[in-house]
């Protein structure tokens, strides 16, 4: 591997370019016309414009990206996160063109992308999954019987469902029939497919994930967990490592389960298994992300390594031999989005008229923004990741607070004031929160 094309934009493109350069690899940035002034374009060794602003005509076009790799002679492609990173066909196309795809094989991506198949595979590998029906329910009666067996509350879900439609929470047997039929007819109307399945409902779960690395030859290691329960409409806002509720025993159990699951599918590359964890510290497989995650830096900070480097190394054919070491201190990441927390986090694109980063001990900033940068309205609104590391969670929170106080971004609204309030929240400080946290947390625009 000599030259890596980064099929992405924004901070993750820059993040990957940095590690490539430190590894002595040449880099090719691709960009849409809306990103011509972006830092990933400037800091790459070469840059190729691949299309107009619309993602569908640029960052989501395998043909244009492969063409860019061909004309620049890139022999590997890093997909980052989002865009084509979990597109099985793209992984296949790269492979067909003798370009190393820095990520899992197409078949792995495909398998983990189909929810029911992924769950089945993991269950077979011995990873705890949410108890429920083994596929489609034959009838309402079968569902009711199963619900009694695994215990209420349960969720009835449309097989073709998504976006919360065709889905119902059932708290007790009395409501089963009515709610089942409601979900079923909604699914039929919405997706033309009335097939239903059933799962135990994990109440007030935490979202905790395990970072993994596999070499495709059955060797898999994990890097401990990340706490990602602070999310709004399934968008993570703040992540930390370790989780305030995970002790050494739970970490070992979750780590082993995740490693086992990834080894069972002979996983190649960096990946993450997301778990739901209930109040009794039972954990259940939720899904596997077959790519690098936005929040990988908190793991890097507490494990003292460069996950992107490891990801590239296994893509080069290196064997995973490293084993787990104890986590070092505590790390928190705040996603700084160009969004107005006072207006339901609505995007606030525009030009950044002043940009000053916090600095000093234990502070890391991953960003593609700068003074004068125009945030294009075409893509997601994240403009920076602010990451801190400290000895303890308490000190990490204090460090994050002072770093947020120092962070100056003018010209657009950002989520900085939200994070400042979040860090003052008693439940957050105590570590007693779950994925429902943001349902009750209210941002005070006048604070």
């Amino acid at each position, binding site marked *: 591997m000599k030259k890596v094309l980064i099929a992405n934009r924004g901070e993750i493109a820059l993040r990957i370019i940095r590690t490539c350069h430190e590894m002595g690899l040449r880099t090719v940035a691709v960009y849409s016309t809306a990103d011509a002034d972006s830092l990933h374009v400037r800091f790459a060794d*070469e840059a190729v414009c691949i*299309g107009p602003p619309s993602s569908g005509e640029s960052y989501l076009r395998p*043909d244009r990206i*492969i063409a860019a790799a061909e*004309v620049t002679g890139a022999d590997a492609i890093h997909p980052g996160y989002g865009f084509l990173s979990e597109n099985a066909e793209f992984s296949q196309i790269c492979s067909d063109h003798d370009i190393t795809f820095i990520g899992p094989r197409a078949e792995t991506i495909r398998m983990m992308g189909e929810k029911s198949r992924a769950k089945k595979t993991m269950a077979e590998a011995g990873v705890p999954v949410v108890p429920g029906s083994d596929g489609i329910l034959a009838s309402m009666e079968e569902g009711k019987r199963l619900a009694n067996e695994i215990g209420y509350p349960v969720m009835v879900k449309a097989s073709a469902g998504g976006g919360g439609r065709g889905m119902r929470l059932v708290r007790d047997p009395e409501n089963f029939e009515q709610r089942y039929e409601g979900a079923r007819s909604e699914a039929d109307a919405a997706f033309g497919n009335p097939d239903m399945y059933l799962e135990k409902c994990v109440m007030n779960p935490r979202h905790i994930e395990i970072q993994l690395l596999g070499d495709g030859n059955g060797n898999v290691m994990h890097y401990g967990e990340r706490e990602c329960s602070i999310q709004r409409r399934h968008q993570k806002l703040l992540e930390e490592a370790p989780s305030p509720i995970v002790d050494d025993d739970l970490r070992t159990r979750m780590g082993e389960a995740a490693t086992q699951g990834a080894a069972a599918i002979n996983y190649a590359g960096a990946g993450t298994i997301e778990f739901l964890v209930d109040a009794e510290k039972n954990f259940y497989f939720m899904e596997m992300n077959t790519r690098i995650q936005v929040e990988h830096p908190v793991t890097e900070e507490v494990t003292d390594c460069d996950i992107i480097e490891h990801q590239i190394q296994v893509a080069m054919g290196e064997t995973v031999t490293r084993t787990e070491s104890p986590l070092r201190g505590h790390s928190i990441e705040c996603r700084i989005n160009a969004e107005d927390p006072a207006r339901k986090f609505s995007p606030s694109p525009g030009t950044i008229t002043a940009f000053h980063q916090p600095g000093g001990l234990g502070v890391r900033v991953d960003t593609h923004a700068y003074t004068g940068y125009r945030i294009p309205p075409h893509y997601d609104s994240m403009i920076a990741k602010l990451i801190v590391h400290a000895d303890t969670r308490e000190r990490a929170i204090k460090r994050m607070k002072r770093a947020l106080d120092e962070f100056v971004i003018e010209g657009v609204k950002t989520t900085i004031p939200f994070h400042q309030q979040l860090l003052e929240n008693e439940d957050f400080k105590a570590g007693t929160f779950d994925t429902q946290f943001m349902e009750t947390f209210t941002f005070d625009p006048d604070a």
Partner: protein
Amino acid sequence: MKLSKIQELLQMVAESGVAEVEVEEDDFKITIRQNGPTVMMQPSYSPPMHGYGMPQQPQYAPQPQQPQAPQPQQPVPAPETSAPAASPSTSDSAPASDTTGAEADDGELGANEILVKAPIVGTFYRAPSPDSDPFIAEGDRVGEGDVLCIIEAMKLMNEIECETPGVIKEILVEDAEPVEFDQPLFIVDQS
């Protein structure tokens, strides 16, 4: 307007920090522009140590093997962006960092001239095969639908067709050179 008045005006504008002032009075018109901070709107980075921006890469080698006999399989229509009026607004569709030599021409287009730009990334070929004659030469008159060139991407030979008739004034890219999206390929005189 007296010189002394202009002098005063100049100073006022300089001190005010505004970028441009235009004053029209009777038969008189004066425009004062200043640059100072304008640059700040652009990212004002120093030139990087390494080159960047595709067309500046000296290490670009032509495709290792010339296409044996390109088989047009998937004609790509000429891009919508290829027909903006011959005015400074053409630069709207060009990326700001697009510092191709052709960009200079961009600003110098004659009244009836337009740019045909690359609709996709790939390798530019002037002829259907190494042994064939080029599709077009400078000075040729072209009609709608005429093939101007081929851009090869992922082993596919994409024919780029003419959208608006005219005369090929200039060919801006060498044969077998890589081109990126929106890179100017031809200047066409429509008069």
